[in-house]
């Protein structure tokens, strides 16, 4: 007779999810699943709305990475209008995306994941959070908070709001950066770089300490996918798509988002509202691939800025080539913040960012558009069909986190199998399973949970699959 352990809700992630762990008669883990339990239906209710509204509406998919949707939507609008965005518009969009990568990655590292590293996987769940970190190490907590604030303020200085700025539009952006804004960014950059250096130093020490986590938190081969720029340089806004495998072999390169349906499929499972994208040539579920910071570092030839390039080399040395452990997502995120800060440093001196020519204006010139952008968590696709008046007829979106769904499931199963033996499961071991999910920093664009509101819910399932008994553990 089998048993199921349910972690409900998974905490300190962005969105609502549960994890089920299936135990056999001997209390050994057979399998585990990551369930996303929230659904809103943007792909349907956007139909009939004007294309120009889409950036504002789809930004509301996500309060953590609204800029990603804003940019992917605006880029889809660029294609429907068949316009070329003025250089200032593109540079300003890039700057906002870099601000977002900084704030979102800082949030993942300092606010959500560092309590596990610094307070301990087994520490008291009541204080194992950002407030516990504030109590334990106020200086580190403060500098992490200020690093995230830097990224959020870059967004606000450009778009007038930290969350959901109505700023990027089809054709470009509404306004340039002010001189005051430019001065603020310039002044705060050194502190941000110093914080990042501290975080990198801290994490590298932890890597030595957490060798078991490196080996169990999603260490397996998969494909990696993301955008790269000219000459294979790390890219976050525009470029072409590339797939590489775990050996570092090029699987596909020079792909355009316009053809995404040729190489990406989306599978559905009854036990999750999150679909399961896969690489079509390998089929489902063999076409497992990972996106986001780890993937971007694995597929690019170099970062393209000085300090980040040095750090990429060290990252690869420590990973032994291609980083196939999802625990390295944390490290990759820090390298990306460094790259973002270096690029902001360059952009803030660029005369274009205060130019008033930020937007091309045009009507509907194409009835279909596909836009892509690198969100903090991976590659984001928007696909719209419109009528002659720009009214939306069809929408499809492939969200970054979804593309890690197969990998997240594999990760929770791997961790559970390693740590869980027998029916008595300490809370700290379940926290490790959750931490495996936190490594991906999934953005599930939230809902709630707590139907069963107990920390542990054990079901006894008969051979026919019926629940024959349930146990609540407090």
């Amino acid at each position, binding site marked *: 007779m089998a048993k199921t352990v349910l972690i409900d809700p998974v905490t300190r992630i962005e969105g609502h999810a549960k994890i*089920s762990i299936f135990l056999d008669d001997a209390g050994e883990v057979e399998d585990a699943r990551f369930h996303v339990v929230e659904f809103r239906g943007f792909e349907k209710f956007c139909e009939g709305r004007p294309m120009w509204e889409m950036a504002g509406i789809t930004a509301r998919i996500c309060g953590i990475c*609204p800029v990603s949707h804003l940019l992917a939507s605006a880029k889809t609008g660029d294609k429907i209008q068949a316009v070329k965005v003025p250089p200032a518009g593109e540079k300003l969009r890039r700057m906002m995306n870099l601000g977002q990568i900084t704030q979102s990655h800082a949030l993942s590292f300092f606010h959500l994941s560092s309590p596990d590293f610094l307070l301990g996987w087994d520490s008291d*769940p009541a204080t194992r959070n950002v407030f516990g970190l504030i109590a334990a190490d106020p200086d580190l907590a403060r500098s992490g*908070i200020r690093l995230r604030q830097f990224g959020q303020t870059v967004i606000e200085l450009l778009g007038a709001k*930290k969350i959901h700025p109505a700023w990027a539009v089809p054709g470009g952006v509404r306004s340039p950066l002010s001189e005051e804004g430019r001065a603020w960014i310039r002044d705060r950059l050194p502190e941000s770089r110093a914080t990042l250096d501290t975080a990198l130093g801290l994490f590298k020490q932890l890597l030595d300490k957490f060798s078991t986590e490196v080996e169990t938190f999603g260490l397996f081969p998969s494909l990696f996918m993301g955008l790269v720029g000219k000459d294979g340089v790390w890219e976050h806004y525009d470029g072409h798509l590339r797939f590489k495998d775990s050996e570092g072999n090029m699987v596909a390169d020079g792909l355009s988002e316009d053809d995404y349906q040729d190489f990406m499929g*989306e599978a559905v499972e009854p036990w999750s509202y999150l679909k399961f994208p896969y690489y079509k040539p390998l089929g489902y579920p063999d076409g497992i691939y990972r996106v986001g910071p780890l993937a971007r570092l694995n597929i690019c030839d170099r970062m393209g800025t000085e300090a980040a390039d040095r750090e990429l080399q060290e990252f690869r040395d420590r990973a032994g080539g291609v980083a196939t452990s999802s625990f390295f997502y944390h490290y990759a995120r820090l390298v990306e913040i460094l790259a973002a800060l270096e690029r902001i440093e360059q952009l803030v001196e660029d005369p274009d960012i205060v130019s008033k020519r930020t937007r091309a204006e045009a009507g509907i010139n194409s009835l279909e558009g596909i836009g892509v952008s690198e969100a903090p968590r991976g590659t984001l696709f928007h696909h719209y069909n419109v009528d002659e008046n720009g009214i939306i007829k069809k929408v499809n979106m492939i969200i970054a986190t979804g593309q890690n769904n197969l990998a997240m499931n594999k990760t929770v199963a791997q961790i559970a199998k390693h740590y869980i033996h027998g029916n008595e499961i300490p809370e700290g071991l379940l926290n490790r399973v959750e931490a495996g999910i936190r490594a991906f920093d999934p953005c599930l664009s939230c809902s709630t949970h707590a139907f069963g509101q107990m920390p542990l819910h054990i079901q006894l399932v008969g051979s026919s699959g019926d629940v024959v008994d349930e146990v609540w553990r407090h």
Partner: protein
Amino acid sequence: MAKIKLATIWLCGCSGCHMSFLDLDEWLLELAEKVDVVYSPVASDVKEYPEDVDVCLVEGGVANEENLELIRIARERTKFLISFGDCAVTANVPALRNMLGGAEPVLKRCYLELGDANPQLPNFPGIVPELLDRVRPVHELVHVDLFMPGCPPPADRIQATIEPLLRGEKPVMEGREMIKFG
């Protein structure tokens, strides 16, 4: 003075209101001296909504069975419940699906028309909560003590709302800085 027990929950929203809460930035360090965060998806590992919560910020509208269950539990166990952001106050963007007349059209589009392997509607009782036919604002289901609009409410508004509560006073929601939507 005893610390105030603060909780935050999110129902059907985008987590933007929670992000705006984190935009309190360094004021969070001061707040930490005055409140115990006893339940929060982003700032706590506690799995069960506790008893005797003083203040709860509720983000999001009520869109599925679990939202419904949680908001009822939160109401029962909380002294002062705040509708936190436009989705909680009006149901906002998630409620765009209400005009389609039910949950089925949005589910069909996503999983049957756009899924190309195993197309089916997610259905796993006890794990995947069923959607309600309408997304509803929080006050349609339970009594709300205070409305804090905004998409999301900016951090300044959140601070100006929490500060009087720390002194045991009810915040005054007046003027553009406190009651602007969007």
